């Protein structure tokens, strides 16, 4: 029996057809990523029971929420879940405090997992408690909505593009709170998004959805490094590396270490030892057969080719590499590939032109 979330869902909606069988880990953030219309939100709603997927099966850690084969369908209000909608959807007739208490007071005292204070502190809304929802900014509202969902003591938190309705500034305001939640909460989160940066920054596990089907599902780093994804995902190809800030150089660069190597980036203000996630786009990686001399590019790392695949863009290929255990993707022209004779097993040098830090 799986300890995480299991969801087997099938739905026919005219031209759209959803057919997924998900097995998501018990800890961390699982991102459902895909373009609009790929079925992300429908999956989330069906997991919550807001949408009925006939013949479906949904279970969390052995607790069955839906098993139509056995006639089981637990109504939404009896499922220990939290749901954060795209719009905060606070109750306009209640104060922030009463909104937060709404779910909390409906959970029996012995089942409550979070107290009001730590949650309001975690999301930085302690000063808003007596306010009315219509007096809050979009970012504040969404933080209250997240706190409200947490205070209902969920065993699973479902988030449906919680940042999509916000402008960039509000997004950047909320992301650190989500990262704190990620670090401090022991409940699994399923996070729907169509924004690659959000996913790269937050997710541990990634499910790629395309036209109602899960085309890939696995740990974020491994899944992003796959070269066999459908073309719609290949444009944004790139990997995410979990690094540790190891030290500052004299020339205003900082050293980030990851399993298998190190990267240099512009001076960071974080303390030594801080974990930083960075994203390296495949188009920012070039390859050389010998250690490059006379190159202005700082990050040059020895790597081994593990796979080569064609891309949607004519004349280009995607090369999957390993630097120690860590994956890397490079997008180069088919001509270069031919001239350099790039095949799996070849040892070469990867030059990284850009490293995007996600924190």
């Amino acid at each position, binding site marked *: 029996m799986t300890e995480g979330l299991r969801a087997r869902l099938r739905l026919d909606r005219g031209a759209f057809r959803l057919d997924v069988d998900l097995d998501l880990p018990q800890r961390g953030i699982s991102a459902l990523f895909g373009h609009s219309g790929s079925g992300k939100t429908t999956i989330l709603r069906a997991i*919550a029971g*807001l949408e009925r997927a006939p013949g479906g099966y949904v279970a969390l850690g052995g607790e069955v929420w839906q098993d139509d084969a056995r006639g089981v369908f637990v*109504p*939404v*209000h*009896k499922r220990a*879940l*939290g*749901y954060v*909608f795209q*719009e905060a*959807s606070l*109750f*306009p*007739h209640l104060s922030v405090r009463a909104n937060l208490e*709404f*779910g909390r007071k*409906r*959970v029996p005292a012995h089942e409550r997992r979070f107290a009001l204070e730590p949650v309001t502190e975690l999301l930085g809304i302690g000063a808003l408690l007596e306010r009315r929802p219509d007096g809050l900014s979009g970012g504040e509202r969404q933080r209250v909505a997240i706190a*409200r*969902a947490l205070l*209902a003591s969920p065993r699973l938190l479902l988030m449906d593009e919680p940042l999509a309705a916000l402008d960039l500034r509000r997004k950047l305001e909320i992301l650190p709170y989500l990262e704190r939640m990620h670090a401090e909460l022991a409940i699994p989160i399923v996070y729907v998004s169509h924004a690659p940066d959000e996913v790269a920054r937050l997710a541990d596990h990634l499910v790629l959805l395309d036209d109602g089907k899960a085309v890939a599902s696995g740990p974020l780093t491994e899944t992003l490094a796959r070269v066999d994804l459908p073309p719609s995902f290949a444009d944004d190809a790139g990997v995410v590396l979990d690094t540790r800030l190891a030290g500052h150089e004299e020339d205003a660069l900082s050293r980030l270490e990851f399993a298998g190597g190190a990267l240099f980036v512009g001076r960071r203000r974080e303390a030594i030892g801080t974990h930083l996630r960075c994203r390296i786009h495949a188009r920012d990686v070039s390859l050389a057969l010998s250690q490059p001399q006379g190159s202005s590019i700082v990050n040059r790392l020895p790597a081994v080719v593990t796979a080569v695949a064609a891309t949607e863009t004519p004349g280009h290929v995607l090369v999957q590499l390993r630097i120690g255990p860590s994956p890397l993707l490079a997008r180069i022209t088919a001509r270069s590939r031919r001239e350099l004779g790039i095949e799996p097993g070849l040892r070469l040098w990867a030059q990284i032109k850009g490293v995007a830090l996600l924190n």
Partner: protein
Amino acid sequence: MTLDDADLAAVRLTLELATVVTLLLLAVGTPIAWWLARTRSRLRHAVGAVVALPLVLPPTVIGFYLLLVLGPNGPVGKLTEALGIGLLPFSFGGLVLASVCYSLPFVVQPLQNAFEAIGPRPLEVAATLRASPWDTFWSVVVPLARPGFLSGAVLGFAHTVGEFGVVLMIGGNIPDRTRVVSVQIYDHVEALEFAQAHWLAGGMLAFSFIVLLALYTVYPQAMKGRR
């Protein structure tokens, strides 16, 4: 010269009738309005049309059919007699029943509009926060639909106070039992007692105006059922 005892009795009876009818209207109208606002059943158009019939039918038509249904040979009349209640026409109970039918759209439509304006999202949010449907109705729907309840109650009350045709058909003109203000005014006019008619008619006019003014002032959008 002011109101005599018969006038005061008519006023008292009218207020009593309108109060009972308004409470019943809210009790009956709320589930109907909720069903109409939420259902996708094909029957909803037919049910909505039936509820709205009193808006377009002359009160005599409604009174006539109620008389047949409630009378000694009608299905409801047979039932009430079998239950020992007796016959409803020409009684206060009959008047209440007729008024509820006649004023139903004035309560159902504002409520339905208010329920529709809430939309499905707050209900979904409440469900994910562990509120059962019944709990959600009282803790979310009722507060959010308050303007709808208020305008429904006010319109139902005012419309009951203001009815005449149905009352005459079903209730007749029995002092202290079915003779309401509108009927009393009719009697005064028939008897050429214009001064007394004025007191009651003017009072009705002022009452109706004040009620509607208050409603439009407090909830300008409530009359359209939107928030």
